[in-house]
């Protein structure tokens, strides 16, 4: 990476003997929209706080670098970052304009300049300074507070902006709007955004790259497409989107597509090759519901994997229809059929129908152990 603004090298952090962050390493490029995604307790917020400087890595717990310099021992006020907090953390005793001016005052910006910069920051987040400047935070709606918090951070023209689940508390409609606005601001200002969220859709919508975190580690780091299409572990496959999992045994590890025995060895299907897996290994594969086809017995397209079963449930979801197919041996697979206008009349699948789940071998992958 040419110009990393943030770099974590083997960073670990524990609280009272419990490791919250374990050996996390990544580098974030200037101007990137970088998300840390994971369930609560996965270490994403601690990692953000390590970057902000509220926490220091353990002794021998690696390095946090900003602009190339190790900052392990720097306090947040020395790091010249900006941050938007989960609950906005607006100062209740200060007006909107004084809230936004706070950082500029602390950084000894000339008085004459402060007023102008506060006004343009408010305009940037689409709050009219004339209307809002003198209001108190308690007179604002959740969405407006969110914008003030954003203005308070952006007014400093930071290289790096940290955002800790900033959209968690606002309603869905506004959240979608803000997601796009944040993405636009990121590109327009060239500011590096480091975003923490537990909402996979949010991360997919906005991010250039996502670090999926679990148990204090980075489970996978990549672009949204890489992570969705090639989840490396079962955790990632489950956390981002939906997935079907099948356990099997490698029968023949040669060539680009390998044979896998499934269901006690009666059925074989093929999967793309993977590193570090040898014959006889028990493996787990994942395949997305929307990459599966559901066909009548005898109609399997040539070259596709096929598993026979019977329809156990049909769930109509509007945009898609989920058909749950019970496979022999007790496993279920969910097939997502796109609604192209003929799904309900007549309903193509009914409970009890014999059905074959089919997919292209390239659309599934062998998962790594966690």
């Amino acid at each position: 990476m040419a110009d990393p603004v943030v770099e974590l090298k083997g960073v670990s952090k524990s609280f009272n003997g419990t490791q919250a962050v374990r050996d996390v390493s990544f580098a974030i490029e200037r101007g990137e929209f970088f998300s840390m995604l994971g369930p609560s307790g996965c270490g994403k917020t601690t990692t953000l706080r390590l970057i902000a400087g509220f926490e220091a890595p353990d002794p021998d717990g690696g390095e946090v670098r900003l602009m190339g310099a190790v900052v392990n021992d720097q306090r947040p006020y020395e790091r010249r970052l900006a941050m938007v907090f989960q609950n906005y953390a607006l100062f209740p005793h200060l007006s909107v304009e004084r809230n936004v001016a706070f950082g500029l005052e602390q950084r000894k910006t000339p008085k004459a300049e402060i007023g102008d910069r506060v006004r343009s920051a408010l305009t940037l987040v689409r709050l009219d300074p004339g209307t809002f400047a003198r209001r108190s935070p308690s007179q604002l709606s959740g969405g407006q507070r969110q914008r003030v918090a954003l203005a308070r951070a952006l007014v400093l023209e930071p290289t790096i902006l940290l955002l800790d689940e900033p959209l968690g508390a606002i309603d869905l409609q506004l959240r979608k709007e803000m997601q796009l606005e944040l993405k636009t601001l990121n590109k327009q200002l060239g500011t590096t955004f480091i975003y923490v969220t537990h909402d996979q859709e949010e991360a997919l919508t906005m991010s250039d790259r996502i670090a999926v975190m679990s148990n204090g580690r980075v489970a996978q780091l990549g672009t949204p497409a890489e992570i969705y299409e090639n989840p490396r572990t079962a955790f990632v496959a489950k956390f981002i989107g939906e997935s079907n999992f099948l356990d099997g045994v490698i029968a023949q590890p040669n060539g680009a597509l390998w044979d896998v025995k499934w269901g006690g060895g009666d059925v074989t299907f093929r999967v793309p090759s993977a590193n570090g897996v040898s014959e006889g290994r028990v493996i787990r594969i994942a395949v997305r519901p929307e990459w599966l086809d559901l066909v009548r017995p005898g109609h399997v397209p040539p070259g596709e994997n096929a598993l026979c079963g019977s329809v156990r449930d049909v769930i109509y979801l509007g945009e898609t229809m989920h058909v749950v197919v019970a496979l022999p041996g007790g496993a279920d697979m969910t097939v997502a059929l796109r609604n192209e206008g003929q799904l309900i009349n007549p309903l193509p699948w009914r409970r009890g129908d014999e059905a074959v789940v089919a997919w292209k071998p390239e659309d599934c992958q062998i998962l790594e152990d966690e």
Partner: protein
Amino acid sequence: MRRRLLAWFTRRPEAEAWALLGPGTFWMLVFFVVPVIVMCAYSFMPRGTYGGVDPGFTLEAYTRFLHPVYLVILERTFVIAVLTTAFCVLAGYPVAYAITRSGKWRTLLLFLVVLPFWTSFLVRTFAMIFLMRDTGLINTWLIGLRVIRQPIEMLYTPFAVFAGLVYGYLPFLILPVYSSLEKIDPSLLEAAEVLGAKPAARFWRVTLPLSAPGLIAGSLLVFIPALGSFLTSDLLGGAKGLLVGNLIQNQFSTARNWPFGSAASLILMTLVLVAALIYLRVGRE
């Protein structure tokens, strides 16, 4: 029966409000408003020979209060009350601040702050006599340690009154300040820090303004009772430490001048009210 009563109240919100306000209002009416009215009336009447009042109207009680002897007492009372409040703020705020950051010790420390209340104020004030008199603990120790040769004269001085008042009223400052400090969202301090505020700036710009309500409430809780106190000054103050409270008490007991006592009380009340209003106005800004 209970359900019907509840339903009746639900239909009549104003009745509910009166039912809630009733007991407290009644108490204040009988034991505060009525006596103040009586006192106000007495202060304009001639004194009775053996206490009480005679019929008639006179301003004598008020003109008498303007005599320098009494004005000196009034001034001393104000000075001591202001000093007591100021010292309680300076000594109590850091304590409250430390308690909010004391983690698992918090409950124990709060318990220690209220512990003195378990003993009567009178007993505690007597205990201070034993500490501060010439042959008391402090002087004995200081002489024993060769810090001083002669005992320091502490008891029966305004200083003793000040010390007694600070001791007695310090918890009334610590508790409200603690409760407002404790309510401050820690993320506000983090926000200030990320915005570039060093620890001192964080305190002056965020912590102090947000704890102002507790600080104002606490200092009024110290200042007002300190102005009206008489027990501490009676036991520790001697003649040089006499406060308005003692003056008033004397008028109703040995001096048997009820109108003067009433007038002094009313003057004190008015001054407290004015001082509190000014303080609140300033404090809000």
